[in-house]
């Protein structure tokens, strides 16, 4: 057994939607239909550096640190730690708003700003790696980009209305100011700024049903997307050595589809995907975890060069765990973003539980 369940975090009173690791990798935030955000951490910080664990999860190995009794009027669908310091947390809710929370020693988490604008349910919030930009998306088919203006507040700098349906998820490129959005319209769109305006530079077509989630490889050279069509697709990003090398001409040859884990990668819609932060050597390109409606957690090993695909890219299934959240859907899978903790994986499900896993190859 290479996938070890280390902790089961109970407390949410409704399904858990999404997870976000603190940039230190030593805390985890979860958001839920119960309208709260909970912050979790190992009781003993040394735990994260351990490499052997009891067979059964030890009660109290992880604990609830804090809780944001959010003022959101409906489900908190998405949560994101500010990625440079982790001092702020962004939450996106079905009540149509996005909130920015900052930790105060005496008051706990306080709402610094509420970003209104989406017409209805906000589905996802994502912080750019610099912490300067925030992207949100939702049922109103739009993607909004916000810029930090100090004091915890943000100005809207763009409203992108090119998706033809519900936008499910947004995520930023790890090194460039490039945003990917995925939608119920079956497409993935890549956005970039030029001369103070944001443009769709590429539409990735290939999925035949709703695209639920996406993640960039840690070096930004690939994007992985998962869909209702039961496939996992890998797209080759244009060279990102320097930003001047990226030519974002619409419909240019970049962003080729590199590899598809064929249908039946899962037997039901795949809701979440996460690319691990393992140090990649020449061939090994890290691990990709997926989870979804078939209650199964899967881990794929990605390899370059040796693969059968023309780009040399291949993903092979290395781990499969049925009923990772019992008979419940898996809504989110998230690898720890710190290289030294790259074996840690967190998952969240409709059972209202957050699970912490340790994976060794």
């Amino acid at each position, binding site marked *: 057994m290479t996938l070890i369940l280390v902790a089961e975090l109970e407390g949410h009173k409704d399904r858990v939607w999404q997870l976000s690791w603190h940039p230190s990798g030593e805390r985890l935030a979860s958001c839920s239909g119960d309208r709260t955000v909970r912050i979790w951490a190992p009781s003993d910080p040394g735990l994260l550096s351990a490499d052997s664990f009891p067979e059964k999860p030890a009660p109290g190995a992880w604990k609830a640190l804090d809780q944001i009794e959010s003022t959101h009027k409906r489900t908190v669908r998405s949560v994101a730690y500010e990625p440079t310091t982790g001092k702020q947390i962004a939450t996106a809710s079905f009540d149509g708003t996005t909130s920015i929370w900052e930790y105060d020693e005496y008051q706990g988490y306080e709402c610094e700003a509420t970003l*209104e*604008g989406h017409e209805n349910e906000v589905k996802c919030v994502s912080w750019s790696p610099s912490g300067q930009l925030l992207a949100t998306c939702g049922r*109103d088919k739009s993607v909004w980009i916000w810029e930090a203006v100090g004091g915890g507040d943000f100005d*809207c700098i*763009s*409203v992108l209305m090119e998706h033809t349906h519900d936008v499910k998820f947004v995520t930023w490129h790890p090194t460039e100011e490039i945003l990917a959005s995925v939608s119920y319209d079956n497409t993935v769109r890549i956005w970039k700024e*030029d001369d103070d305006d944001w*443009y769709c530079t590429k539409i990735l077509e290939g999925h035949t049903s709703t695209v639920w989630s996406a993640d960039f490889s840690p070096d930004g050279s690939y994007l992985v997307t998962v869909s209702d069509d039961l496939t996992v697709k890998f797209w080759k990003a244009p060279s990102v050595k320097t930003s001047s090398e990226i030519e974002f001409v619409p419909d240019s040859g970049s962003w080729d589809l590199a590899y598809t884990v064929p249908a039946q990668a899962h037997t039901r819609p795949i809701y979440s995907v996460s690319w691990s932060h393992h140090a990649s050597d020449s061939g090994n390109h890290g691990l990709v975890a997926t989870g979804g409606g078939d209650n199964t957690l899967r881990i794929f090993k990605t390899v370059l060069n040796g693969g059968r695909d023309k780009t040399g890219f291949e993903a092979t299934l290395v781990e499969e765990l049925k009923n990772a959240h019992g008979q419940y859907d898996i809504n989110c899978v998230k690898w720890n973003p710190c290289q030294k903790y790259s074996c840690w994986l967190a998952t969240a499900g409709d059972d209202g539980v957050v699970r912490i896993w340790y994976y060794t190859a």
Partner: protein
Amino acid sequence: MSFSGGVRLTDLNDFIAPSQECIKPVEVKKTSATKSTVEIGSDGGYYEVTKEGSATKLEEAQVTLNDCLACSGCVTSAETILIAMQSHEELISVLKANVLAKREQRNSDLRTVVVTISPQTRASIARKYNLTTTKAGMRLAKFLKTAGVDFVFDSAFSRDLSLMASAKEFVDLYRNRQVGSLSEQTFPILSSWCPGWICYAEKTHPEILPYISKVKSPQQIMGVLVKTYLAQSLGCSPDKIYHVSVMPCYDKKLEASRSDFYNDMYRTRDVDCVITTGEIERMIVEAGSSVQDLDEQSFDGQFCGQGDLNLARSAGSSAGGYLEYVMSYAASALFGMTIPADSIANPAGSGLKRTLVRNHPDHQEITLSHPQTGEQLLRFATVYGFRHLQNMVRKLKTGRCSYDYVEVAACPGACGNGGGQLRPPETSPKSLKEWANSVENTYKASEPCQTPEENLALAEVLSNWLPQGIDQPWPKKVLFTSYHAVQQATNGLGVKW
């Protein structure tokens, strides 16, 4: 069809998704009081069949654009409704009906056809065909007149009246604020002529409706002029005039369809049909002609600029020059300062300052300070494009919007860049932007600037039409309008995770 961002975001351009259906209750008038059944006839129509066996064809239920505007449910495939009501085909069919009526000597069926062309439309045509805006307008006039249109007017004419009413409204409110007699928060005053912005505000931010100027847009003021003043001078009833406006914007079709601009007595709208710049170009092409080959003809003088100038423009951007004129008028009326409107576009000295907010041309601040004391007297802003509009609304709601007046447009770059304008051959984001800039420059380089007071034709119309001045109760009714919050119906069934 491309509505502005505000309209698109409020779902107006939405199609019925498989799970959603129109929730608008349709009233069916029963023809018989007794029990009857509904059957489908051999022609596919629905018939109400009474017990006695007599069948009456039932009217087809129709959802109009106006039903959709008043509803917060889906908005059907709004495009098909728009195409039925507001298209150049509609104009062509009216012209054809006139020809037929003339031939058959049915004079009572003849309708006077009036077309009002916006200056932004002329700028777009001029840019594409490398003409001056005046020539572009005169070619459109020639084309329309040849097609059977009776009058061609310039909407810059009615805009002058809209500008005057806006300036007067601002100064009145400002004075009321000074003496503390405003019952509710009304500042900043937000301009009202952009229908995309109005639609967005009504559907999503009803609490900011009190801030919006109540002055009608140039299109709707022209609508009143045509259907009252012109109708009177022609000695006909308003429904005998078919009034079309040519606009840079699809949202203008929604504006014309508002029930506020419908005359119940004569069952007619102030503006019967709105076509966009792109649609009039298509109309020319479909007629087997081209803008290059058209001859030129003057606009009709009743509602156009003055004398030989014929066409004139107001100082300011393609948004229409509201900010400039309101500030110029207010500086004079409130502080006794002479600040010409065209000096506000490019201020040099005299206490005026124009700054780009965070270096963006679509959000500018224009302040007027006392030349001696340096005290800030007026603080105005332009807010173009959904992004800036959005930030303004957020600031307004949290009480951090300290402007006195804001010129609001839903489109980036304002109306020269409206969704109904002609597109450049290249459609990369960069060329679209350059094109929009060059249309704006064409607009600004068009006819000489003129203030509303210098519009002699307008002065003449006003002396006949509104001799008592523009702040009397009756003119308020024709120059002002009101806004209506749209109740949001939350439909739990529509939620998709």
